[in-house]
């Protein structure tokens, strides 16, 4: 019990307390860098600006000071409830994310750094993600505003469509790792293999030059399922409704879409949800495709053995735990940076282009990906054994 509460506090502290405020700042600075500006640097306390890091604080203070306005024709209860429904799924998704591996400290059970180490973790992510659509839907409907309604119609169609493709694009990963638990997936990614090792079965391996035969890559999802990675990242970014997929809130055509009639901190909650989903997406993509907490080419046993030979087993396990948490967070930061880069590089799609991309390009591609993966895996099982 105490262990679980500790994990929850850690996750909330890291993601809500550190990542979330920083992301609003990072977003501003990233856009400034890419548009050749200086960027956020005005908010200050007694003249100290600290590179503009104080801007999130100023934002929150401003939002809390604003009037909380409910339009006259709105459905009051639903209007007030919608931002909360939008925010909650983003937070509870973190319950199944493994921030570090499984460690034996000699206690009753090995220590596993997941809040809820359930067998069906990835299904949980999808279930929670599908609930997230309701925040948008209720917001647009309850506002009683045609722009908001248009935004909501767009949002619900976009989210349902991309959910289908998102589910299909990770089936290849299930097949490779034979599990749906994110922790077990991370454990399976904690090793490496020879990139061209399969040529042994054709008798071609000996003909390769030595350095080519020696090349090793980690067994990460991104190397086993490169197409799955690209498609999953696209779909999950479309679910998040940030540019270039921000059709539901396209400010130039729909003013602001579904959160048009919101003000003050309730509007802030929608933005919090959107910003919070950025690190959450980073966490899920990292756990699925980037090896989770694993450090490339140094699996847990080697690390514990190596450090343990100098300082003892228990101390080494603790050090490795800390190292793994840092490896995970570093990968999450890389994924956040990648999302920021995409967000500020690409212009907004047209709506029919978004739908065509989903149904006419990604859906067939993901089915092809499943088929090819199945054939290759069957070949490995039959021939390689």
């Amino acid at each position, binding site marked *: 019990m105490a262990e679980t509460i500790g994990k929850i506090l850690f996750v909330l502290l890291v993601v809500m307390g550190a990542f979330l405020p920083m992301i609003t700042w990072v977003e501003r600075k990233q856009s400034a860098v890419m548009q050749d500006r200086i960027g956020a640097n005005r908010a200050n306390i007694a003249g100290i600006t600290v590179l503009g890091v104080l801007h999130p604080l100023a934002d929150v203070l401003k939002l809390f000071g604003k009037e909380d306005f409910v339009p006259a024709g709105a459905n009051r209860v639903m209007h007030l409830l919608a931002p909360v429904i939008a925010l909650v799924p983003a937070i509870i998704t973190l319950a199944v994310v493994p921030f570090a591996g499984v460690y034996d400290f000699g206690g009753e059970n090995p220590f596993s750094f997941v809040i809820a180490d359930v067998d*069906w973790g990835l299904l949980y992510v999808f*279930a929670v*993600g*599908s*609930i997230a659509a309701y925040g948008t839907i*209720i917001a647009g409907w309850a506002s009683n505003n045609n722009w908001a309604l248009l935004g909501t*119609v767009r949002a619900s169609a976009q*989210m349902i469509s991309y959910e289908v493709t998102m589910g299909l694009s990770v089936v290849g990963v299930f097949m490779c790792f034979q599990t*749906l638990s994110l922790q077990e997936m991370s454990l399976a990614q904690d090793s490496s293999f020879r990139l061209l090792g399969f040529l042994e079965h054709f008798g071609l391996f000996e003909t390769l030059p030595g350095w080519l035969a020696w090349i090793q890559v980690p067994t990460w999802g991104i190397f086993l399922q490169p197409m799955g990675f690209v498609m999953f990242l696209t779909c999950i970014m479309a679910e998040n409704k940030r540019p270039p997929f921000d059709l539901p809130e396209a400010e130039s055509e729909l003013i602001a879409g579904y959160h048009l009639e919101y003000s003050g901190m309730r509007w802030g909650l929608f933005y919090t949800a959107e910003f919070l989903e950025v690190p959450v997406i980073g966490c899920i993509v990292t756990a699925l495709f980037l090896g989770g907490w694993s450090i490339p080419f140094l699996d847990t046993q080697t690390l514990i053995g190596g450090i343990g030979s100098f300082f003892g087993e228990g101390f080494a396990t603790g050090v490795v735990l800390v190292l793994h948490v840092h490896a995970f967070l570093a990968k999450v930061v890389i994924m956040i940076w990648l999302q920021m880069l995409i967000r500020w590089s690409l212009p907004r799609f047209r709506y029919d282009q978004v739908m065509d991309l989903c149904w006419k390009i990604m859906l067939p591609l993901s089915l092809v990906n499943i088929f090819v993966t199945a054939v290759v895996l069957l070949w490995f099982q039959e021939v390689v054994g």
Partner: protein
Amino acid sequence: MSAELSLFYFFAALAVGSALSMVLNLRNTVASAMSLVITMVSLAAVYVLMEAHLVAVLQIMVYGGAIVVLFVFVVMLLNLRQDDFPPGRQRGAKALGVVLVVFAVIKLLALLPAALPDTVAALPEGFGGYRDVGTALFTRFILPFEATSLLLLSALVGAVVLAKRRLD
């Protein structure tokens, strides 16, 4: 009362209450749909209490995430703001139907405790998990599974044909 039983009573009450509010809410179709979501989610919780984990997750994913969103999507697409219809026809027959349904349910509830055995079978390892259910689905139930895929295909074609404005 054990924790599981009180959880069951809580979610059962939630399911029945929101189902009633879905049927009795005469003004707002979207509110009916939201009540239906609450019913679905509380039923998923009951499934978890019955150790049916895969079914519970799929219940939320398919019913909560797709089907009800589709309902709401259609309501918004047609922009049905309020739902006040003139008095319907055949009210006597409908009232009789409701009375019969209520009577049948009460009779069923009275008969149920005697009809069901008191003991339940022991849970096998992996009961309700995706491995076991999936294995059953793809071995013993492969024919219904394939038949369902055919049904889905025909529904897909049918929905496109129905919703398309005109076929050219």
